[in-house]
């Protein structure tokens, strides 16, 4: 349940990059929470705001170009508007992209629910040479229009005053604009047959239009009544316009919004090219663009590494003191000790390793996301990613994957095509995260020299490419890339910090219980000395297939909890003090590294995959990684023995 019954609800609706989320973040505080919507992985941001003593629920719906959804997040927005109870729409319009933004406004006016327009980025529009007659726009649409600059908090008070007045003194409904007479005639005919089911929002004209444009959005009951009329209407459209119903309506709205823009704004040609456009000449340059991207990636990793290390160092001391507090239990009540220690290991992993890297990673990503640079990187690497059957949009999750798979999986949400999102989600666990990089470096440094670290990395990249290619071949062909490159903007640190906090809380909330339970079970395995049974189970694989000591079996189970534990556990399992003393040959170490780098992701990653992609994809991803790990390690064993 997203909407609470107690308070009136305001929903923010706008196109992607319209500044809707900035507006939401300016209005909300840290009480913000995200709510998942049934059947999708997309989520909405929700908060409660207090205006002159009244509490309202404020909901930030995912950006949507139209109410004809394609991606999961757009489906959420449309479904929400059609079916959830709310009191007022705040349509956030990007004033600097007036014509395109108004296409959604025209559609919302057809929808016919109470509405206020926040004409956002008003300053940017003026610097683009667009002067907007706000009174005229109000007269045309019959709803209040408030100019805002969300990033600087300007116009926000007036916007909230307007919402307050509307909700207390009576809401106003927008006036729709008429299409060409032939189409209006069909709409009028269909409209007369429509009875909207009680749970649906919107007016009958809207459903009449949708029955021609996008029938899947129309409730079945309505479709039954109007089927023959809408088929006739579409036939006429095909005959007269040479396009299907969807396109014809889209063109109608396109013309209406162009007409509306013409009526309410004047465009001055500005001679001066803006600084952001000049910057783009460098950022998107066919050669310089890649040099800057390389520099950016180095800065990005370096900062995350240094800051993550520093935070890790800070929390490491206090965290490592915790076992001292329950040490006394070990002799008296060992079962309790193993239970607490299991929980401790899992929590130490998330607070000591995942969070220190997660924090700078999410903060930095939020900042760069807000500047608009991330979509430029997607543009630059799109060609390269095509070679593995994906789009440039997957680059961000992949980069994040080198830090930690968990934020990478969350970042995959930005990919709207479910197929690409799934492939990216399955590939992410193969990208060596910082914990696995640590294992690779520690073991190669002790046994084989750094050259093998490169061999391992190169091999993993080949695996990622081949798996990507194979998966994309197996699945249907994706829709071509259409990626908006929003104007460059100055980010706000405060907003980035709010977003970071919300994401961290989301991670803890979703993974905490599972992680705790999983860790405690591993603690019990230790208590019941079940590791020898675990070793026994893994023996055929480790000893026979891979030629490794069977005692490493339980190590792999602990590696599932925290991959960096592998080194400590391997040393413990084989009864030595330090990594270098492990009774393994250099060849065995390489086989072992290959196996641990590729097999099953860690527990937290697995849980997040299940949450984000569902059980089918989660178990498929796990099975695939185990198969690839076994085959790869076996191949290395054979090749090295030659």
């Amino acid at each position, binding site marked *: 349940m997203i909407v609470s019954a107690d308070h009136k609800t305001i929903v923010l609706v706008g196109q992607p990059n319209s500044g809707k989320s900035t507006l939401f973040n300016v209005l909300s505080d840290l009480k913000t929470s995200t709510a998942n919507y049934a059947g999708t992985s997309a989520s909405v941001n929700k908060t409660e705001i207090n205006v002159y003593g009244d509490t309202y629920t404020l909901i930030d719906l995912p950006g949507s170009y139209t109410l004809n959804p394609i991606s999961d997040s757009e489906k959420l927005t449309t479904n929400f508007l059609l079916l959830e109870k709310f009191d007022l729409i705040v349509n956030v319009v990007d004033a600097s992209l007036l014509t*395109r933004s108004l296409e959604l406004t025209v559609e919302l006016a057809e929808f016919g629910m109470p509405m206020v327009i926040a004409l956002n980025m008003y300053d940017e529009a003026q610097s683009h040479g667009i002067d907007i007659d706000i009174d005229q726009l109000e007269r045309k649409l019959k709803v209040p229009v408030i100019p805002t600059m969300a990033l600087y908090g300007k116009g926000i008070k007036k916007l909230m005053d307007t919402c307050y007045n509307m909700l207390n003194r009576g809401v106003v409904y927008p006036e729709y604009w008429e299409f060409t007479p032939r189409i209006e005639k069909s709409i009028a005919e269909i409209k007369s047959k429509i009875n909207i089911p009680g749970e649906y929002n919107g007016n009958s004209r809207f459903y009449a239009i949708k029955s021609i444009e996008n029938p899947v959005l129309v409730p079945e009951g309505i479709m039954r009544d109007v089927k023959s009329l809408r088929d006739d209407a579409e036939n006429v459209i095909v005959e007269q316009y040479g396009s299907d119903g969807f396109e014809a309506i889209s*063109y109608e709205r396109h013309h209406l919004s162009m007409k509306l823009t013409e009526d309410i704004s004047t465009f001055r040609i500005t001679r001066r090219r803006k600084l952001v456009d000049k910057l783009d000449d460098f950022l998107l340059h066919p050669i310089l663009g890649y040099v800057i991207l390389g520099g950016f990636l180095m800065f990005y990793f370096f900062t995350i590494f240094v800051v993550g290390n520093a935070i890790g160092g800070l929390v490491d001391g206090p965290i490592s003191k915790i076992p001292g507090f329950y040490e006394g239990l070990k002799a008296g009540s060992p079962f309790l000790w193993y239970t607490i220690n299991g929980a401790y290991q899992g929590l130490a992993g998330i607070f000591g390793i995942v969070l220190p890297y997660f924090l700078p990673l999410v903060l930095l990503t939020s900042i760069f996301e807000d500047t608009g640079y991330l979509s430029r990187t997607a543009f630059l690497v799109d060609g390269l990613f*095509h070679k593995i059957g994906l789009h440039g949009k997957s680059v961000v999750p992949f980069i994040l994957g080198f830090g930690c798979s968990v934020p990478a999986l969350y970042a995959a949400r930005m990919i709207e095509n479910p197929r690409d999102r799934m492939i990216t989600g399955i590939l992410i666990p193969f990208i060596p995260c910082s914990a696995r990089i640590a294992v690779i470096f520690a073991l190669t440094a002790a046994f084989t020299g750094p050259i093998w670290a490169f061999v391992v990395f190169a091999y993993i990249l080949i695996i990622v490419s081949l798996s990507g290619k194979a998966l994309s071949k197996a699945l249907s062909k994706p*829709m071509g890339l259409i*990626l908006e490159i929003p104007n460059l903007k100055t980010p706000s640190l405060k907003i980035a910090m709010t977003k970071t906090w919300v994401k961290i809380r989301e991670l803890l909330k979703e993974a905490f219980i599972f992680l705790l339970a999983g860790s405690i079970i591993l603690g019990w395995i230790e208590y019941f000395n079940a590791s020898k049974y675990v070793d026994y189970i893994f023996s055929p694989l480790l000893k026979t297939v891979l030629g490794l000591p069977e005692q490493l079996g339980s190590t792999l189970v602990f590696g599932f909890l925290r991959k960096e534990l592998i080194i400590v556990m391997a040393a413990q399992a084989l009864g030595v003090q330090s990594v270098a003393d492990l009774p393994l040959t250099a060849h065995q170490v390489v086989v072992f590294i290959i196996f641990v780098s590729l097999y099953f992701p860690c527990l937290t990653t697995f849980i997040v995959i299940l949450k984000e992609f569902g059980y089918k994809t989660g178990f498929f991803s796990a099975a695939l990684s185990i198969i690839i790990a076994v085959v790869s390690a076996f191949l290395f064993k054979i090749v090295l023995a030659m």
Partner: protein
Amino acid sequence: MHRVIKLDIATKKLTEAPLNQDLQIVAIEAGSESRHRMNSMGFHIGDILVKIDSNRWGPVLIQNVTNHATKIAIGRALAEKIIVTFKI
């Protein structure tokens, strides 16, 4: 006396069209899903756009002049299905 009228309009795929020049969309020969997506993002037949950047294997970067919109990157496969006319 006859005057020779020279047709100075060319029609090409977006991938082959010149950079930094007004191009008018005359057809989007892609599947309905991609076509609808283009429509939703503010691209329609008749719109004027400018191709800003493109290399041999990457996506094509365009800007819609008709609605003063932002830049949009279009995958190469899709860009090949967008037909534009322009003055030569």
